[in-house]
């Protein structure tokens, strides 16, 4: 299996890995013997040209050498073997809350079409999202299969939407826009 070695601007843009690997060519450059030994022992192989392209700026930064080394190792330790594929996804809105649970309007994100109303017990809401649980709250519900380190399991995952609140500044802008529209509507338009 071979990998893409190109480091053109386009590839930098859409490849997830900042470092690409090829075979052999251990390189040391201006980072000291410590770093060199780490590179040699890591089997994190890159060509000289690639190293110069990516590492040159490191020569000019002051920083804890361990953080730089961690970064280099990141690629090796970062690829956690987790993947999940969904059988079905919904976007839900909490429409009613009662003692036993709640009802939600469910929009089918997998197949489209019309919505359904579902009834749920309170334990459907993850404890970590309780603070988000209100009337009108939006959540995502997915079911499918997940594989973590080669172990496959079914999952049913609920997560409530988390977007930042509208800031005071933006609220003022909305208010000004609304007022402007209203004033224009009332003053400028012919009403029958």
């Amino acid at each position, binding site marked *: *299996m*071979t*990998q*893409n070695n190109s480091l053109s601007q386009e590839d*930098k*843009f*859409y*490849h*997830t*890995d*900042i470092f690409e690997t090829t075979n052999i060519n251990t390189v040391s450059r201006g980072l000291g013997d410590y770093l060199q030994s780490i590179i040699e022992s890591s089997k994190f192989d890159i060509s000289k040209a690639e190293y110069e392209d990516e590492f040159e*700026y*490191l020569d000019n*930064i002051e*920083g804890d050498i361990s*953080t730089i080394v*961690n*970064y280099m*190792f*990141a690629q090796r*330790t*970062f*690829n*956690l073997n*987790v*993947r*999940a*594929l*969904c059988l079905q*996804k919904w*976007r839900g809105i909490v429409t009613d809350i009662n003692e036993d649970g709640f009802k939600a309007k469910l929009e089918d*994100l997998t197949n489209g079409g019309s919505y359904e109303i579902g009834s749920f017990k309170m334990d459907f809401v993850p404890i*970590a*999202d309780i603070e988000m649980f209100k009337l009108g709250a939006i959540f*995502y519900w*997915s079911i*499918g299969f*997940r594989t*973590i380190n080669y172990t496959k399991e079914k*999952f049913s*995952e609920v*997560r409530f*939407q*988390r*977007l*930042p609140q509208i800031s005071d500044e933006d609220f003022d802008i909305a208010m000004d826009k609304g007022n402007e529209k209203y004033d224009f509507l009332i003053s400028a338009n012919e009403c029958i």
Partner: protein
Amino acid sequence: MIQEYLYKYKLNLVVLGDFNPAIFSPAWLALKKLIRPENMEDTQVHVIHGSFSLFRIGDWAEIKVNKETFQLTTAREDNFDLLKDLMVGIFTILKETPIRAFGINHNKYFTVPDENRYNKIENKLAPLGNWNEIFSDPKLMRLEILQLKRPDSNMGRISFSVSLPDEEMPKNTLKVFMNDRFDIDDKIKSTEKFLKIFEKSFKSSFEQFDGVIDSVWRKIN
């Protein structure tokens, strides 16, 4: 249909602009309530630095930032909408960030059940018979098609490729990739424009990717 051979679906969202990587950390995301408080316990931080930041939130999102590129990645299809929300949330807060372009990058890995079928697909995509006299046992490594003009009114382009996988995968796996790229031409309100286009285009990007895959599959079968 080819979708039955799907082994993995990885979504990578990339933004090109001017960033300060030191800002981005699990603590900052939790402070801004963009992630669950419990995710703070479950992060793996590799680097938070003025030149680059790199950390993972639980098992559902990877964040990589350098001064020019901001990336969010997940291989959990159930979290694609959350990734989108995270992107929107971050740049709603950092609304003065100069942004030049962004990409919605789809990576689907299909594991074909047997080598014969795999070879057939390979040959249909790029007839290798032409190369038999030049190379012994030629194999397809990568086929990329570029569309320079977007089908919508946005600036940018789309590229689609079929290649060998770029990570460890079962045998007879093909990687199908689409880079859905959007260029932002507004220098003053670039973040606002980015968010508007991103939110509007997110869903249709998936539809487009699946549409292309289905079309290609139909043509080669």
